[in-house]
C-alpha cells in the first residue's frame, strides 16, 4: 500500500543542494538531534564557519583530520543566525566542564555538527577534569562518511576516532547508560553497535540487520543494555545481547500488529526510570509503551514483552519528527512538521474504563519555528527548559511557565517564552 505522503514540503533542507556556496564547513555533519549534557555547557550558535560560544569561558572545537576549524569563542550577546546557513536540524548541548560556569546551553546548529556527550566513567565526580567524548554523525549524500568521536580535554575538542562501516547516511547515534557502548543507525537499514576500548579504540561488536527500511533513530534504555531502534518500516525493534558473546538480536518488534504505528517511526524516548517509553511517528500519533518488563525473557510475545499503553492522537496535524520525555518534570515534548511544539502530561486519573494511563496536551506553542521543527530536547536538570531545532536554521530555547513542578490539574496558561540565541 503506498505510504501516505505527508512529508514532502519544499523546505530549507534542500538549500545545500541548490546553493553549494553556502555549504560551508564541507558540511560533513548534519545536525540531527538535540542531546543534553549533564554538565554545565556553554552557548554556541552557528555563524558561518564559526560556532560562537556564549559562556563564561572559551572553548575551541577542532576537527583535526579534515582541517576545518570550528571555533567556539566567547560572545556576550550575539543573536540570530546569518542567512544562508544550512537549516538546523537539531542542536546539541555540549558539555564544557569548566567549573563554576554559569548555566547555559551550547548548541551546534546550522553548520552541521552533532555531538552527543558521554561521561567518562573514571571522572564521575571530578568535574574539573572530566573528559567528555562525543559521537558525531556522518553526513548525508552519496558518500557514506564515518562517524567521528570527539573528545574534549581541558578547553579543546579533538577528533579521536573515526568509525567506518555504514553505507549510507548515519541518522542517529547513542551512548548507552554505562558509556561503554555506542549505537549508530543508518539509512542502510542496519544498526551498528560499537564498544569503546581503552585508548580511544572502538570495535564493532555487532551489525544488526532486521529492519526492512531506513532506521531513523536509536536510543538506549536508561538503565539496562537494551537498544531501541525506530524505522521507516513502521516498526520499533528492541535489541538485546544474548549471553555474553557479542550476540545481539532482536528480542521484540513493536509493529502495527501489536498496536504499533502505522507509518514511519521517527523517534523514541524513555522516561526517567525507563519504565515507559514514548514513540512518535508519521502517522500523527504518539504512543506510550510499558517497558518495565524484560523482553529478553520472552521472544516476541509473552510475559516479558513490552506492551502498548496509550496512544496520543488528534493533536498533531503533520508528522511528528521528534519526542523527548523530561527526566525532571515527566512531561513529553513533541516536535512536529506543522511548526509547533507540544507538551503532554500524564493524566492524574486515568479513565476507569481502561485503567491505563492516558495523556493529554498541557501546552502548545504554535509557530514555534517558521517551518518544520526537527528536534526537541529537555534540559537534563532544569525542568523548565526545552531546546528545539528546526529547518528555519534556528535553535531556540524555551522556558515553560505557569505551572508548578508537580503535574497541574487541568493546567492553565502554560506559556513558553522563547529566547533567541
Amino acid at each position, binding site marked *: 500500500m503506498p505510504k501516505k505522503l505527508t512529508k*514532502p514540503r519544499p523546505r530549507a533542507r534542500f538549500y545545500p543542494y541548490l546553493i553549494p556556496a553556502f555549504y560551508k564547513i564541507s558540511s560533513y555533519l548534519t545536525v540531527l538531534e538535540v542531546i543534553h549534557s549533564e554538565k554545565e555547557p556553554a552557548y554556541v550558535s552557528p555563524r558561518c564557519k564559526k560556532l560562537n560560544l556564549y559562556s563564561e569561558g572559551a572553548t575551541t572545537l577542532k576537527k583535526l583530520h579534515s582541517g576545518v576549524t570550528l571555533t567556539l569563542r566567547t560572545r556576550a550577546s550575539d543573536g540570530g543566525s546569518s542567512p544562508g546557513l544550512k537549516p538546523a536540524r537539531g542542536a546539541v548541548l555540549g558539555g564544557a566542564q569548566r567549573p563554576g560556569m554559569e548555566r547555559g546551553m551550547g548548541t551546534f546548529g546550522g553548520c552541521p555538527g552533532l555531538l552527543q556527550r558521554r561521561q567518562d566513567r573514571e571522572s564521575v565526580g571530578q568535574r574539573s577534569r572530566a573528559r567528555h567524548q562525543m559521537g558525531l554523525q556522518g553526513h*548525508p549524500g*552519496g558518500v557514506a562518511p564515518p562517524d567521528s568521536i570527539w573528545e574534549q580535554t581541558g578547553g579543546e575538542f579533538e577528533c579521536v576516532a573515526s568509525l567506518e*562501516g555504514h553505507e549510507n547516511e548515519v541518522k542517529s547515534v547513542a551512548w548507552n547508560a554505562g558509556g561503554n557502548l555506542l549505537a549508530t543507525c543508518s539509512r*542502510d537499514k542496519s544498526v551498528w553497535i560499537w564498544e569503546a576500548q581503552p585508548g580511544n579504540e572502538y*570495535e564493532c561488536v555487532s551489525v544488526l540487520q532486521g529492519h526492512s527500511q531506513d532506521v531513523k533513530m536509536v536510543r538506549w534504555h536508561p538503565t539496562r543494555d537494551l537498544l531501541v531502534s525506530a524505522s521507516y518500516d513502521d516498526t520499533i525493534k528492541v535489541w538485546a545481547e544474548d549471553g555474553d558473546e557479542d550476540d545481539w538480536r532482536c528480542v521484540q518488534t513493536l509493529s502495527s500488529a501489536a498496536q504499533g504505528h502505522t507509518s514511519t517511526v521517527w523517534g523514541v524516548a524513555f522516561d526517567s526510570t525507563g519504565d515507559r517509553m514514548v514513540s512518535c511517528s508519521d502517522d500523527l500519533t504518539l504512543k506510550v509503551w510499558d517497558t518495565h518488563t524484560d523482553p529478553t525473557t520472552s521472544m516476541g510475545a509473552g510475559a516479558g514483552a513490552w506492551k502498548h499503553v496509550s496512544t496520543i492522537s488528534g493533536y498533531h496535524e503533520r508528522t511528528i519528527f521528534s519526542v523527548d520525555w523530561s527526566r525532571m518534570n515527566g512531561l513529553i515534548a513533541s516536535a512536529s512538521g506543522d511548526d509547533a511544539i507540544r507538551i503532554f502530561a500524564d493524566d492524574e486519573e486515568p479513565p476507569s474504563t481502561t485503567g491505563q494511563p492516558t495523556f493529554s496536551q498541557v501546552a502548545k506553542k504554535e509557530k514555534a519555528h517558521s517551518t518544520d521543527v526537527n528536534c526537541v530536547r529537555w534540559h537534563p536538570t532544569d525542568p523548565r527548559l526545552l531546546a528545539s531545532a528546526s529547518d528555519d536554521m534556528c535553535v531556540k530555547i524555551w522556558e515553560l511557565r505557569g505551572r508548578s513542578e508537580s503535574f497541574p490539574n487541568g493546567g492553565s496558561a502554560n506559556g513558553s517564552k522563547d529566547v533567541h540565541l
Partner: protein
Amino acid sequence: MSGSSRDIFDSSLDLEREHLDRGYAEGLRDGQTEGLKEGREVGLKSGFEIGEEVGFYSGCVEIWSKALETDGTLFSARGRKSIHTFSQQLAAFPLKEPQNEQYDSLLKQLRTRWKVLTSLLGVAPLEYPGYPRGEEDPTSF
C-alpha cells in the same frame, strides 16, 4: 440406432476435453524445456555470483588464518575470534544446495558477519565488487 455401448459420436462429446488435455500436455512440455533453459541461465549467473562472493570471503579468511598461524598476536582478540567463527560459518554454508530453504538467510547472515569482521580487522569496507547495492532515494531524509 446401434445397441453397442459405444457411439461413433461419443468422441465428439469429449472433443473439448481432448483439446484441453492436448494443449496442456504441449504447454507443459514446452514450458519445461523453456524453463529449464532459462533456469540454467539464471542459475549459472547467480550461482557464479554467489560462488565468487563466498570464494572471496573464504580466500580472505584463509590468508588471515594463515597469518595468525605465523603470528598469533595479529589483530585484536575480538578480531581473532571473529575470524575463527566466520570461517566456521563459511564452512557450514550450503553452497551446493541451492534448494536449501535457509540458503538466503544464511547468505545474508554471512554478509552481515563479514561487515563486522572487516570492521574489527580494520580493513573495512572490504567488499566483493559484485555486491549489489541498494538505490539511494535523494528525496528521502
